[in-house]
Every structure is written in C-alpha cells, then in structure tokens.
C-alpha cells in the first residue's frame, strides 16, 4: 500500500526539441505517511503528480502503485487503477455542479459499477469525517470554499485509495481554513493508511508531514524528514 517511483523521466515536446519535466526521479512514499512535495513553479511538481496519478505515462522508469507496476499498462487498466487505488484532491474542488455533496462521493461508486445508493452510507460517514454532517444534500453553489474543499478531500477517500495525491489543497483558502484542511488530511492519511503526496507552496505545512521532498528542474534535490523546515 505505497507509492514507488523509480528513475522516472518525462519529457514534453517543445518546438523541435524535448523539454525535460522529470529527470530520473526516485520517490518512495510508505503507506500511512504524508510526503510533501515542494519546489518553485515549473519545477516539475505537477508533472510528478500527473505521472503518479497515471494521467501521463513516463518516457522511462517505473511507477508502482500499491504493488502494481503500471509500466506498459493499457489506458483501460490505468483508468481502472485510478478508479480503485488512487484518490485525487485537486487544487480547486472541481465539484460537479449538478450533484449534491453526498452525490459527489456516490458518483465514485457509480464509476466503478457499484450502486450509488448503497454507497450513500459511506459517503455520509466521510462527509461527517470532514466535518460536513448535515450538508449532504447541498449543492456546490450552496457551500463555502472551505466546505467545497472538504468534499474534494472526502471524494478522494471514497474508494479507500492506496495512494492519495493532493495538489495544493489550501491555495484558495485563508490561513485558518488551510490549517484545518491540512489537519484533516494528516488525520485521514494516518487513519486510512494511504500513501499521500502533498504538493504545496505553503512552508507552514511542512511541520505536519512525515517527509519533505524538494524538486527543482525536474530533479529531486533533497529528501528531508519533517520538522527540519
């Protein structure tokens, strides 16, 4: 139940040449821990997240998710892996406007061919876990930014993911709400045993994580235990 990236290289076409986004990246994220990924804009954070999410296949190297090597997997299998083993918390909540808070979570069961109705119980449990008891039937436009982001997190946990990928979840929130969201992520990661990667610009978050990884120009510069920043 962990995430391993080994010697991952990713390039993009850039005119006639190729731009290297990730250059021989090695990363281990054990289950039940949070690894913070920090670095300046354009350093490769989003590319690393996209590779870990199986949204992009690297040029070389391997990505192993909960023991499953994704190298050479078909698009269909990668989609299935994303649906069953990976949770994603987007930078913005990215909620579907037509769905209520509970339905934002139930849709995950629907994607996997399970009955959304029977998944409602778990959806309500997760909403309660993120402090949204009583908000299950509200639609996104009826909720605050912090509440929407909490739903974003709860949705990512709906499929009991082995790997949780979190992309700057507090960037649109004030300091107080941002800290509350981080506390929530930490608690849920430890409780659910997920291997969590947290992309963040906010250095105040770094004290709360288990591992800090800095990335620059597509290379991991350092891997620093939490509390050193």
């Amino acid at each position, binding site marked *: 139940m962990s995430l391993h990236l080994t010697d991952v290289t990713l390039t993009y076409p850039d005119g006639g040449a190729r731009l290297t986004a990730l250059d021989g990246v090695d990363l281990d994220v054990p289950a039940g821990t949070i690894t913070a990924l920090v670095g300046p804009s354009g350093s490769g954070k989003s590319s690393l997240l996209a590779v870990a999410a199986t949204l992009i296949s690297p040029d070389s190297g391997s990505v192993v998710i909960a023991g499953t090597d994704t190298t050479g997997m078909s698009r269909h299998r990668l989609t299935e892996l994303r649906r069953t083993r990976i949770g994603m918390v987007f*930078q913005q909540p990215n909620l579907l406007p037509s769905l209520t808070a509970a339905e934002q979570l139930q849709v995950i069961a629907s994607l996997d061919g399970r009955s959304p109705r029977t998944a409602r119980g778990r959806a309500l449990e997760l909403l309660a876990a993120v402090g949204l008891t009583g908000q299950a039937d509200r639609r996104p436009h009826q909720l605050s930014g912090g509440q929407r982001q909490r739903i974003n997190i709860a949705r990512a946990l709906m499929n009991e993911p082995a790997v949780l990928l979190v992309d700057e979840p507090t960037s649109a929130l004030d300091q107080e709400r941002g800290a509350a969201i981080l506390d929530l992520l930490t608690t849920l990661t430890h409780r659910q045993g997920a291997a969590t990667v947290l992309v963040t610009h906010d250095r105040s978050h770094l004290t709360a994580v288990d591992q800090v990884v800095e990335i620059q120009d597509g290379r991991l510069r350092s891997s620093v235990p939490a509390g050193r920043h």
Partner: protein
Amino acid sequence: MFVAWRDLRFAKGRFVLMGAVVVLITVLVGLVSGLTAGLARANTSAITDLPADHLAFTAPIDGEGISFPVSDVDAGTWTAWAQVPGVITAEPLGIVPTRAQTSERTAGVAAFGVQPGSRLAPSGGQVRNGAVVLSTTAADALDARAGDTVTLAGQDLRVADVAGDASYSHMPVIWTSLDDFQQLTREPGEGAARATVVALTTTAAADLAAADAALGTTTVSRDDALSAIGSFTSENGSLQVMRGFLFAISALVIGAFFTVWTIQRSGDIAVLKALGASTGYLLRDALGQAVVLLVLGTVVGTAIAVTAGAALGGAVPFVLDLGTVAGPALVMIALGVAGAALSIRRITSVDPLTALGSAR
C-alpha cells in the same frame, strides 16, 4: 446514468428548451406524415386497394412513362392476357374523370369501369349495366344512397350500393359496368370495348416480360403503377422532401445542442476521467441523456400531433395509423440519437490531465 439524470434535473431550463424544440419538430413531422399519407390515400386508394398484383398498361412510346390518362387497351389484349400461363385473372379496368349529378348535387368523380360482377369493385356483384356502386365519399358528395339515380355524362344510372372509400386523383370513385364506361369515353357505336389497363392476378410462374413483348403492353406491380397517376409523384415527392428535411433538421438541432452541451461540460468530463471514469461510462451517460430527452420530447410531440390530426381528420385528408404515428416518432428518435452520438464523440478527446490545476 447517475450524472445524466442529475444534469437533466439541475439544468432543466436548457433541457426543457431543447425538449420543446423536439416536441415542436415532432408535431410538425407528425402532421406532415399524416397529411402526406392522407393525400396519398385520396390520390391512390382506388388503385392500392385493387385485388390485383399487377397492372398492364399500353406500352408507352420511347422516353415516356406509363400513364393512366394515356393508356388504352382493347378486348383482345385482356383476353390474351387471360391466356398467359401463370396469370390467374386478367380483368379490364377503365378509368376516366367525369362529372356526376343528382337532382341536388354535382361532383367531379372518377368513373371506374369493370365487367359486371367483377371482384375489382367493392360489392362488385352489384355493378351491372345501368347500375353503379358509389364509394362513400362519392355518396356523401352527391348526397345519394342506394336506390337513387345519378347521372354520369348524360346517362342515368341507378345506385345499386354504396361501398368502400376508394378515391382516385383526389376524386371519389363511382364503379360502373364496362359497357356504361364506354358511353363516358366514346361516341355511341364507336368500335369495340376498350379499357385503360388490365388488372392481373399472377403467380410467380408468369413471364410478364415475354407477355408484354408479345401483347404490346408494359406491366408493373400495383404499387409501381401509382407513378402513372399524374399528380401523385410530384405531390407525394414534395411532401416526402419536406418530411426528410424535418428529420434532418431535427438531427442537426439535437447534434448542435449536444455539441454545445458537451463543450460546456468538458471540465466536468475531465474531472470524471481523472477520477477513473471510463470513456464508455461517460458516452453511455451522455447518450442516455440524449435518449431520455428525445423519447420524452417525441412522445409529447406525437401525442399533440395525434390530437391535432384527429381534430383535423374531417376537414383535410389525414391518416392516423401506426405508419404515420409510430414510424416518424421512431425515425425522429433514431436520427436524434445519431446526431447526439456524433456530437458527444468529443468526450473521447477530453484530456483528464486538464482537471489538474483547473479552477471550477
């Protein structure tokens, strides 16, 4: 269809608007279909209801098609046709437009001349020299009933019966004997009996082409013979073109709506893909949404068209049956689904990567 149902409810303004367009087009298609069938029936029912499978016309001169007004066959022709192997029956049928009168009414009618007792006419046993059978529409137009006298081109003829609703070229039909028919088309004492076509009942063994070559006729199936009615092809063709355009417009409008809808939803689609939705799931969801919209719109539109058609039925020729009600509705749905399917293909090209970093 978890998301599709919720989208339908959430964006009901947009879907009601689109549904209203489907309803209106369906009403128009339903009315045009009923009217097309009604007009076609008023033009051709006397031919389509004939108990014969082929009609033999005088062979047209080169470059021309068969034509009821032009065709003219003699007794030798139908007698010879009766001898052709595989021909079960060969009966002369005379057709001429004329004027009918009673003491109070005058109407344009089509006189259909048949041999006395011919099975070509409804209640054919009643057709004798001096006695005619009126179609119900002819009886209504002339306000006549059995036992009354009608005058056809100066001949007083007794109404033996009122039967069938045959009409030809939008005129009600009066069935006369072939001898009385001769009085309508020829001068007294002028030559032997003639008719317009020979109505044939055949088996598969009949070599119609060889018989045509030997007898100087052109034989076509009963349905193909409709093209020999002058007004039918142009009238029916125009209405069918209108119907075809309505079907095409409906498919295009549905396609355009779902194209815009899919573009508007592309952010949601990217998020769902990033969360693990398969393309098949998303296509089924979107297509299901289109089917729901089309079925609801078409059912409501068809109900309105049926109600309007039933109300109009007495005033204009209008046919309400499975072919004019269910047929166009099914075509509307099928073409609409095809239009929607083409437009939602773009779901396959939405990149889930765009969900990362997107602000929604």
